[in-house]
């Protein structure tokens, strides 16, 4: 350093090192290029919740305090029941655990070099699970999603304990808001559903909109989420089967579940629920449409509010959970063991999207992983539309007035 020589003694040390320290600080900066090459997906250590409890969460339990997640899985449930519903991966034999980890790494790669060796090239192409897309996905995931959704998609990132609802844990293979018509239990989202969640965010939660990211990056993110979900679900199912003693050969078990999960994802992509034409649309005049809407809303209120069928009037049984239109909803457990609350339908905030078709899908096939059931077997499409129409009016005071709905007199 030229500037150093006229300066003497103690100030020389400071003067000579300070610029270098500053330079070093500036150059370190942030590494935005993706995960380190030697990083592995951590093996699963947290308990598996294998079934939803059949009971409501005790009311005094409430939501946990900020920072307590994930210590509070199935909080408030008696120890004995908790034991029946959970499986601890610690009970896995050491050799089984090692084989499982090796096999998963072989098939799904590492965070820096993810791959989807799932033995179905057509599905890989359809869902864009090729190496390049996944690598791009993991880089963007690291920048945008990691801090909530965690390295392995476990929903236990650094921010996760502090937000409620908690970030989704993909490793169950369950996504709440889907538009595919598969049976519950094997229902997967269409890729378009994941993309929509990325673009619109989830209103009323901490999931923001990523609408401004380039289209390619969103596509890559959705691919990577599918990758994490497949990997996590196979790990989940194999640990469950091994600890329960249903299976003992790790590679065979992996193959069996891979085939199942692959099929479910594939099935979802082509099973969009297309709601039949909205009945009000075939009407010609404004008066007819208004009359239809008025009657439809009244029918919707009836379906929503009736505790049980009366004569030929059906009940959709909504009030059982959405007590007082959702303002007094009971606490429920979901498939992840956390405590959730059926939506307050008077607020106009819809997590799964607020378009009529979003509400139609929610009512038609329920919400995966929580206690909201499908109504497709009990309600006709027209009746589902009735409930949608009613729900769309419910949050707005002037609309309620117009259509004669009174919040002050909650239906019993």
């Amino acid at each position, binding site marked *: 350093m030229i500037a150093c020589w006229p300066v003497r003694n103690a100030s020389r040390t400071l003067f000579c090192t300070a610029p270098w320290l500053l330079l070093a600080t500036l150059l370190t900066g942030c590494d935005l290029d993706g995960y380190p090459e030697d990083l592995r997906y951590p093996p699963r250590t947290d308990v598996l919740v294998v079934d939803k409890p059949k009971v409501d969460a005790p009311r005094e339990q409430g939501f946990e305090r900020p920072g307590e997640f994930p210590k509070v899985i199935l909080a408030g449930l008696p120890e004995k029941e908790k034991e029946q519903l959970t499986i601890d991966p610690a009970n896995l034999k050491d050799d089984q655990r090692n084989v499982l980890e090796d096999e998963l790494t072989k098939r799904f790669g590492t965070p820096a070099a993810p791959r989807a060796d799932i033995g179905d090239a057509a599905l890989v192409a359809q869902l864009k699970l090729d190496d390049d897309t996944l690598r791009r996905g993991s880089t963007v995931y690291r920048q945008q999603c990691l801090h909530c959704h965690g390295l392995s998609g476990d929903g236990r990132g650094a921010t996760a304990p502090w937000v409620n609802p908690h970030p989704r844990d993909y490793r169950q293979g369950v996504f709440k808001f889907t538009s595919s018509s598969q049976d519950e239990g094997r229902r997967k989202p269409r890729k378009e559903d994941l993309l929509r969640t990325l673009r619109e965010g989830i*209103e009323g939660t901490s999931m*923001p*909109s990523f609408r401004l990211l380039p289209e390619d990056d969103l596509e890559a993110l959705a691919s990577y989420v599918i990758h994490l979900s497949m990997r996590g679900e196979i790990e989940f199912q194999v640990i469950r089967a091994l600890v329960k003693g249903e299976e003992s050969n790790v590679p065979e078990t992996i193959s069996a579940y891979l085939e199942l999960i692959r099929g479910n994802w594939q099935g979802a992509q082509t099973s969009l629920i297309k709601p039949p034409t909205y009945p009000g649309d075939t009407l010609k005049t404004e008066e007819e449409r208004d009359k239809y809407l008025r009657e439809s809303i009244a029918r919707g209120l009836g379906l929503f509010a009736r505790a049980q069928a009366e004569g030929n009037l059906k009940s959709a049984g909504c009030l059982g959970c959405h007590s007082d239109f959702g303002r007094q909803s009971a606490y429920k457990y979901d498939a992840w063991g956390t405590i959730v609350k059926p939506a307050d339908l008077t607020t106009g905030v819809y997590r799964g999207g607020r378009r009529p*078709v979003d509400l139609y899908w929610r009512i038609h096939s329920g919400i995966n992983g929580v206690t909201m059931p499908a109504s497709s077997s009990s309600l006709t499409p027209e009746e589902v539309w009735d409930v949608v129409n009613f729900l769309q009016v419910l949050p707005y005071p002037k609309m309620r007035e117009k259509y004669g709905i009174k919040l002050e007199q909650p239906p019993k």
Partner: protein
Amino acid sequence: MQKFWSILFGATMLAALLLFIVAPFVGWWLPKNVATFGGGIDGLYYLILAITGFFFVLTEAILVIALWRFAGQPGKKSVYQHGNHQLEVIWTVVPGVILLVLAIVQIKVWADVKFIKNMPKPDGTTQQMEVLAKQWEWRVRYPSSARMAEWASNPKAAEDFGRNPHLDDIYLPNEIHIWKGDADKDNKVLVHLKTGDVIHSFFLPNLRLKQDALPGKTIPVWFAVTEYNLEADPQSTEAEPRWKEKDIWELACAEFCGTRHSMMRGKLYVHKDKADFLKWLKHAEAEQDRHAPLASR
């Protein structure tokens, strides 16, 4: 070599000054102003910059000269001074007068931008939207095209937009869509600003507009633009209209609001005219339509 520090400080200050003079010519300056009131705000900014810049250069020059002049005089005794009453009066009164002048000069600009009585009324011609800030996004609510058509014939109906959402309102995150409009006719935009959680700040650098959003309050914000930045994409079709930006105009959060504060960004899209805006709005409506043609792709 006793003059080293004065040379170092002098050179650094000179370099900073040069950099500062060069900056506007190489694009390191304020983003383009597209607001009708932006000129007034920039004028104030330049006035304050000129005053503070002048005194900054003056005091730094005195400092450097003093360093040069009195450096390296071994054995020389310091002179102790209790103070100089006259000097103190001067350096108190001069800034006091300057502050008073600034306080008076800025009144008109501030009143134009922030006084509610100067804001556009929510009537048939004012463009309206509600912006709900939340960690970490901007959720914008627009009136539907039917609702806007109603306002044209019945301006009173536009008054309750901020308080009364309708079921056909359009909700979109992170995108502020407006049209350029004609001066004194329909170019004014009224934003009903709310926050769902903590304090955020609604900041549009190109409009020189910044307003905090406070929990529990709906704060009116207004602006009018002088240019547009959206053009029809050549690949645009009737069924799937697309646009591209001539220029990127950012929306940002200017109040630290949590870990993802820096990612809380959006964009300001200004359409050429109302017809172009309605084309976009109708497309957004189709997305919410009961037939759901777009969702059933």
